């Protein structure tokens, strides 16, 4: 059996053309230029790029079209875009601008039928269920929407089951409690990923290549999302890959 390679996926949150980063989805500091950063990550070996429109849920619209058009002229790796995508039309628009996959959170929660519709029209492999998970107590996680602003009361496991049943091709899950904190991946949360059979990208808290080792010992993840570590230039993708290969973790 061929072991999957773990995809290293920079996550770029963008607002008004600027690359931003918060902590636990709160507070949003400008940390750089998204275009320059994306190119740099591509050249340094990123396996995919994940772009998130950080204010889209405020305007109920995704504004990354123009940016997508420019960046996909420069990179030849898959690009996922999310934030404020509400309808089939929104998805078509972004695909035409160069997106390979669309990631939805709030819209799917409001209207799970949209998952089936998108999967039917574009194929599961183009549809990503984006989850922001928050720990309620020791064993319970719930999902939040609108860039972390609204609690839903929906249990994580239940929601992952729905996403899979309705046909998402992939789940991109961010731990709200760990993201931006540099305290490593939320391993308890990672354990929950075993309930689904779709590929999972795990994000939130990365601060050291060792975190990947810790993560795979709990769950055989298909990819990791990294933001803070890269945007604050604490390290490089090539370093992560070098370390991984030296420590028997499959990466491209």
């Amino acid at each position, binding site marked *: 059996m061929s072991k999957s390679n773990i995809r290293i996926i920079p996550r770029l949150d963008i607002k008004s053309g600027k690359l931003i980063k918060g902590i636990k989805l709160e507070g949003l500091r400008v940390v750089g230029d998204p275009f320059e950063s994306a190119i740099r990550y591509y050249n340094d070996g990123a396996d995919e790029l994940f772009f998130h429109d950080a204010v889209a849920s405020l305007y109920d619209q995704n504004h990354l079209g123009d940016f997508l058009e420019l960046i*996909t002229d420069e990179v*030849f*790796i*898959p690009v996922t875009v999310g934030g404020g995508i509400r309808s089939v039309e929104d998805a078509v628009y972004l*695909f035409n601008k160069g997106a390979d996959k669309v990631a939805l959170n709030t819209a799917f929660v409001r209207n799970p039928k949209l998952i089936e519709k998108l999967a039917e029209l*574009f*194929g599961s*492999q183009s549809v990503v269920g984006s989850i922001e998970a928050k720990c309620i107590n020791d064993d319970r996680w719930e999902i939040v929407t609108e860039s972390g602003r609204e609690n839903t009361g929906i249990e994580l496991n239940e929601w992952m089951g729905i996403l899979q049943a309705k046909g998402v091709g992939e789940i991109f899950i961010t731990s709200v409690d760990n993201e931006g904190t540099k305290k490593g991946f939320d391993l308890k949360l990672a354990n929950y990923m075993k309930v689904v059979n779709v590929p999972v990208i795990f994000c939130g808290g990365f601060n050291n290549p060792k975190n990947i080792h810790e993560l795979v010992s709990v769950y055989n993840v298909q990819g990791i999302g990294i933001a803070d570590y890269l945007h604050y230039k604490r390290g490089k993708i090539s370093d992560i890959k070098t370390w991984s290969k030296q420590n028997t973790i499959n990466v491209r």
Partner: protein
Amino acid sequence: MKKVAVIDYGAGNQKNIFRAIKAINCQPVLASKKSDLDGIRYIIVPGMGSFSVAVRHMKKTGLFEALIEAANNNIKILGICLGLQLFFEHGDEGGKNNGLGILKGKILPLENFCDFADDYKIPVMGWYKIGWIIPKEETEFSKIINKVSDKHMYFAHSFGVQPENKNIELSTLDYYDAKIVAAIKKDNIFGTQFHPEKSGEAGLKILEAFVS
């Protein structure tokens, strides 16, 4: 500059394949109707969307027949992912629409390929190295393929093809206990299950091989 036509079957995102074609110094043109294929020597059937939508759209615009004709006239055609699947007779995605029938074989959901272990993951998503069967006869095509035979390619699919004639299989992916066809070549018909336009520099080489 070589012209490469990209079939428009209503699923959007020709942008990326266009960009990739330009990157290998060729000129991409969008083929939305039969006449757009006049004088074209290279055709790409891209990999986006769903089987039935693609078939319906192509039949409406006359591209369906045009592609079959092109295949019979020795025009070079590359099918990517869904495009590869469209070459075959039957589709299973979203209904019983028949494919182009240029190749004989089946398209099946990946779950049918073997008894996956409990922790299987479908769709196949990500970068994989694949085993290539390079033909003994050296051609421009095989020379270029050789250069990237050890490179990872990007896969994103829930269905796989099972050609009747195993001799056309050019490359396979070992996925859990299944052997999934990663590329086929039969004379002028070339197909990849992976996305060369999304596989970095190595993927661009695959496209170069196609137009060589």
